[in-house]
């Protein structure tokens, strides 16, 4: 950072204005969805930003015991949570081990793994999804949880490996050597000296991986056909209004708000882990 000069009054105003523009630009759609989710169907096309009368109708529709979209939404929510969590867990464990090996061990093919990981992640999802659809149908993975978890791993693993490799490279190598001299096996040294330090990095990476899996739409809509595995982003497209002349916009907005909540909660929960500078003081500081 270097020396930060004190801002003059005019600069402060300019910065505030820029910040405001960015905030509005980023948050306006969210607020709009939130407002829409509280509108009555009759209120949808009035052109007002805020609902004329606040109502929980849309939420009742997707969550209530006799809501029309309740079954569709809740089963997809269960699928989304389950599939994303499992994909995140598997990719975190695999990526941690892979990144550790890449950062710490000198073996032939280190570069190859990293470039392959990068290569995998640059394939457009849409180009893979059709062959995958055929393959999944013939081997019986179509419309199952593993049928989504596996493609999600292909999305989350490359970025996890890259992020964690960078993170592991920052952890002082000597800590592990010190642990080995203190009487630890290679595994113990990893678990007791490196894992606690790597935890913030692993959490951050897991969080990113979770969001990637949670937000996926293309795989979700192409590789599922029933409530057995369909995740929320795909399920939203199947919402229908109370009658065929009614838009399901309200219900979709309510569902969108509901699926945003876990993301916000996760960020708030892990924020401290991410920020905490645990490596400080390990070496001369």
């Amino acid at each position, binding site marked *: 950072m270097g020396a930060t000069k004190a801002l003059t009054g005019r600069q402060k105003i300019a910065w505030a204005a820029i910040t405001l523009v960015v905030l509005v630009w980023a948050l306006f759609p969210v607020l709009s969805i939130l407002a829409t989710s509280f509108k009555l169907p009759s209120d949808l096309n009035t052109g007002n930003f805020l609902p004329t009368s606040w109502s929980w109708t849309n939420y009742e529709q997707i969550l209530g015991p006799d809501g029309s979209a309740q079954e569709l939404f809740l089963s997809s929510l269960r699928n989304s949570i389950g599939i994303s969590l499992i994909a995140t867990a598997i990719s975190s464990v695999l990526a941690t081990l892979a990144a550790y090996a890449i950062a710490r061990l000198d073996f032939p093919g280190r570069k190859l793994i990293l470039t392959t990981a990068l290569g995998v992640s640059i394939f457009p999802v849409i180009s893979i999804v059709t062959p995958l659809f055929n393959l999944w149908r013939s081997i019986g993975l179509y419309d199952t949880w593993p049928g989504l978890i596996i493609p999600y791993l292909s999305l989350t693993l490359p970025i996890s490996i890259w992020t964690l490799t960078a993170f592991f490279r920052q952890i002082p190598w000597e800590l592990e050597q010190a642990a080995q001299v*203190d*009487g630890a096996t290679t595994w113990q040294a990893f678990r007791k000296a490196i894992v*606690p330090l790597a935890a913030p990095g692993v959490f951050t990476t897991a969080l990113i991986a979770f969001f990637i899996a949670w937000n996926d739409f293309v795989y979700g809509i192409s590789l599922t056909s029933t409530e057995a595995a369909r995740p929320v982003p795909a399920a939203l497209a199947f919402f229908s209004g109370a009658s065929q002349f009614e838009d399901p916009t309200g219900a979709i907005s309510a569902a969108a708000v509901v699926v945003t909540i876990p993301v916000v909660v996760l960020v708030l929960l892990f924020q401290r882990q991410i920020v905490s500078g*645990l490596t*400080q003081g390990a070496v001369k500081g």
Partner: protein
Amino acid sequence: MASITLTDIVKKYGDGYPAVNGVSLDIKDGEFVILVGPSGCGKSTLLRMIVGLEDITSGELKIGDEVVNEKAPRDRHLAMVFQNYALYPHLTVYENIAFPLRLQKGKYTEEQIKDNVEYAADTLELREHLDRKPANLSGGQRQRVAMGRAIVRDARAFLFDEPLSNLDAKLRGQMRTEIARMQRRLGTTTVYVTHDQTEAMTLGDRVAVLRKGELQQVASPRALYEQPVNLFVAGFIGSPPMNFLPGEVHGDSLRLPFGDVPIPETARGKLAGRDLVIVGLRPEHVEDARVLDEDKRAKGATFSAEVDVVEWLGAELYAYIPFETHADVAQKLEELDRDLDGEGMRTQMIVSLGSESRVRDGSSAELWFDPRRLLIFDPESGENLTYDDEAARRIDAETEEDRRAALERAHRDAEKQANGEPAARHRQAS
């Protein structure tokens, strides 16, 4: 506790460059041995091979009677203090020190761990910091935690890798004496790597001087100072460093840039048939002739020289005297200077005079030295022609005796302390 025996240890990296080349060293049980040398001489690599963090390319390493070449670090039962301490940042000081004990599953009860950690903490005066994290400690405290982690278990030997180089000068002095005291009291075999010659001279029972991966000389600090085997050791040990002057042999006298001196009896035979030698003269062996009494003056040689710069340090006074070196030895001396991490500055002689000397910048000084203290080196091989093996052995034997006495005293103190009598140093401290 155990002896450590190195036999023809070689470390070659992938490109075939030998970082350590054929080092043989016998470290006795309870001995404090220093590995010293300029940067890149392979001293740290050697230490890391002993502890097991580097593979040994060839040679044999024994701890006690056991060959440990292929053993993992954990099976060698050594304790090491790293240069940057390598404390576990997520653990408190207590847990950092307890770490090696907890790794030995089932060997210690929680109670025993507590006793051991608290004993180590008391030894190093860390008791009030046990609940803190390393990030909140000062450099000296972190250093002590690292030492606590080393002494808490019964390691067969302690290994130190430049433990004091991250501390400031004052703290370094205090920790140095603390390490010496601790080693004496525990009587544990210790190998200590440093590039600082003050640490090397004050701490070690014996000092091993390394240059480009090869062992130059292993001897007590005093023997290294008085009887260095070659130019490199002579130039490395001593501060300010030894002056090297070209000396032309003319019959019974040596012609130095500042005048002729008689060749000392002991060197006469070895100088036969040589024209040119390198003469080593320690700065502290030169004195201001004007402050000497007649008797002493008559025993040595005097010469006058133009003083370029004078540095007055209170206790002593350094005078810098430029001279023209002989073309035939200039290259050898330059090479030596590079080996010693020098900058190839102008050729000048440094003399350390008493602070009462009246020598000033730009003045002409009358200087005196005893020719018997000159060291004479072969200009080609760098070998010390005046090296007296017998004298070196005698000095080593004396040092060994001193060490035994110090160890015994330390043990007596420890026993007294165990019997409830406060030891001498604790009475002082309170």
